[in-house]
């Protein structure tokens, strides 16, 4: 190997190191605490608008225990996680912390995984009745009034984000009714967004998550993604997810 080549490698390495440092600093700058300032409530008589597309950017390096607090907040908000008669495998999980270790490099990280609110959601394509739906503002969820419980959307979802309710339920949350025999998943706290509030999980991890309008180039989430990127899980599937990650 010639001296020139060694120098070339050294230069590239130093440049890479500089990029990483820069990105970390930028991340500190952009990912300051989340505010709901960009959100406005949607009047009841107005439909959701396709001018907006809600999304979130999660920096996994800034999460504690991979976002366990986000999962707990989701459980509390929607009342899932303790269906008494269901086995562990039958318990619905709208969101979970996944630990990932690369087999070659042994690099390891944890991240919260829930509905990724795809722009091209397979769960919506396969649903026979249209119960699995994408709202105009990009939120993917289940219309529980017309879900027949066929579970085809669960077969289709690449992220295992959907769960089926295996037993009769009592004392459900008024803002988030769950029902036996229907499929459910993260709905991005649509009831809160419509009131101009942040999703419960975002509120639980303000230092690590930015929530906002992906269609607005000036929004904080768009600015942050422009500066830092925003990786998708299974990007190869071309689903264009609304939930993006940093440092995965």
């Amino acid at each position, binding site marked *: 190997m010639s001296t020139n080549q060694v120098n070339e490698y050294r230069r590239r390495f130093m440049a890479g190191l500089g990029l990483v440092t820069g990105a970390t600093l930028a991340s500190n700058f952009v990912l300051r605490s989340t505010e709901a300032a960009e959100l406005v409530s949607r009047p009841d008589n107005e439909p959701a608008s396709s001018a907006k597309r809600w999304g979130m950017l999660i920096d996994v390096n800034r999460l504690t225990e991979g976002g366990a607090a986000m999962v707990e907040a989701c459980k509390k908000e929607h009342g899932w996680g303790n*269906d008494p*008669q*269901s*086995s562990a*495998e*039958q*318990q*619905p*999980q709208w969101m*979970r*912390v*996944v*630990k*990932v*270790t*690369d*087999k*070659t490099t042994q690099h390891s990280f944890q991240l919260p*995984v829930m509905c990724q609110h795809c722009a091209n959601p*397979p769960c*919506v*394509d*396969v*649903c*026979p*009745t*249209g*119960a699995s739906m994408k709202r105009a503002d990009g939120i993917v969820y289940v219309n529980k009034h*017309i*879900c*027949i*419980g*066929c*579970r*085809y959307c*669960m*077969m*289709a*979802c*690449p*992220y*295992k984000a959907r*769960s*089926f*309710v*295996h*037993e*009769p339920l009592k004392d459900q949350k008024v803002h988030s009714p769950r029902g*036996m*025999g*229907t*499929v459910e998943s993260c709905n991005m706290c649509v009831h809160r967004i419509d009131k101009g509030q942040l999703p419960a999980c975002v509120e639980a991890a303000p230092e690590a998550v930015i929530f906002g309008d992906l269609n607005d180039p000036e929004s904080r989430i768009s600015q942050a993604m422009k500066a830092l990127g925003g990786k998708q*899980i*299974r990007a190869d*599937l071309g689903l264009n997810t609304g939930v993006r990650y940093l440092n995965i």
Partner: protein
Amino acid sequence: MSNKAMVYSEVHQSGWGYYGLLAASAFLVGLGLIAFFYLEHTGHHATGMTNQIVWGLPHVFAIFLIVAASGALNIGSIGTVFNNKPYKPLGRLSGLLAIAFLIGGLMVLVLDLGHPDRLIIAMTHYNFKSIFAWNIILYNGFLALAALYIWTMMDRKMQRFYKPAGFAAFFWRLVLTTGTGSIFGFLVAREAYDSAIFGPLFILISFSLGLALFILITFGLFHWTHRTLNDELLTRKRYLLALFIGAVLFFEAIFHVTALYAAEHTNFETFILLGGSSYSVWFWLGHVVLGSIVPLFMLLLPMCRGRVRSLLMASGLVVVGSFIQLYVIIIGGQAYPLTLFPNADVSSSFFDGVINTYSPSIWELMLGVGGVGVAAVMIVIGVKVLRFLPVSLAQADLGQEPD
């Protein structure tokens, strides 16, 4: 129509034998209904199905029956579409079996829904991008066309529609089975599926499974009602059955070889083919050896091939082998975890990265056999009240029949 000279009659037996068979079939329906009411009341937590294995034994039964339905119609099509005269007298029975199997299969599918009470929604809210929604149309259309096909064979005034109805039913059943296979073919996220080959593969499974069931049921009905079934006509089907078995293996082989070639699917193929799971044993011993190789020997070896008993045993093994094949496809395919991050170990509270296990409960089995019961009841009553069965096949076969 070709079978002018052929005489058909209702089944005249009405003793203990007939009502015993009817009662046994109705008993199975009863088991299915008990399971349905129980699950509808308590929820699916009583089953072995979970949020990891979302489709279970009922779906295996349902798809088994639906695939068999389109295959059963083939005997009619061989007579009508391919103008193979000896098979024309069996066209009516072929149509009856097709309708009975399809209704049995659909019953299991519908009664396993989380909300079977919302069936009307499935009929009124269509998402036309969904292959499931298309299948609802395809199933209903198939029932209508099979009924029309039978009508053209039974009513002299309708005879002029016999050919068009037969062609339409044949075309429709090919589309229908492609649709059933595409339920899996369109699942882009799962390594076990996500392949266009599921359409043609399911068509071929329907050919072999439908023919095998048709052979067994025809033989049973003719002997039970003391009618003459020309053994040569029956054993003529051995080459056809062997061809279908070989074709299923060929398509299955293409699917797995293609997957083995891609590094991303190596782990899944190891899991399903190379002893990574009990599904490998089911696949090789159940589907390939017992359900394909052994029947092929029985059908083709000179010492066996002329015997009706070999044909019946081969048909029985094909039926069992097809059921196992569908079990491996449906359950085995879900048992393998989704790949969120390639070349990484993943774990979570939601069983990410884990080979999922499935133990069906008695309720799922009851629901499944309930569908078989529905098909059996329809066949047993059908042949009793309408003229589905030829009185004798001794003369009218083997090409002497006027066209």
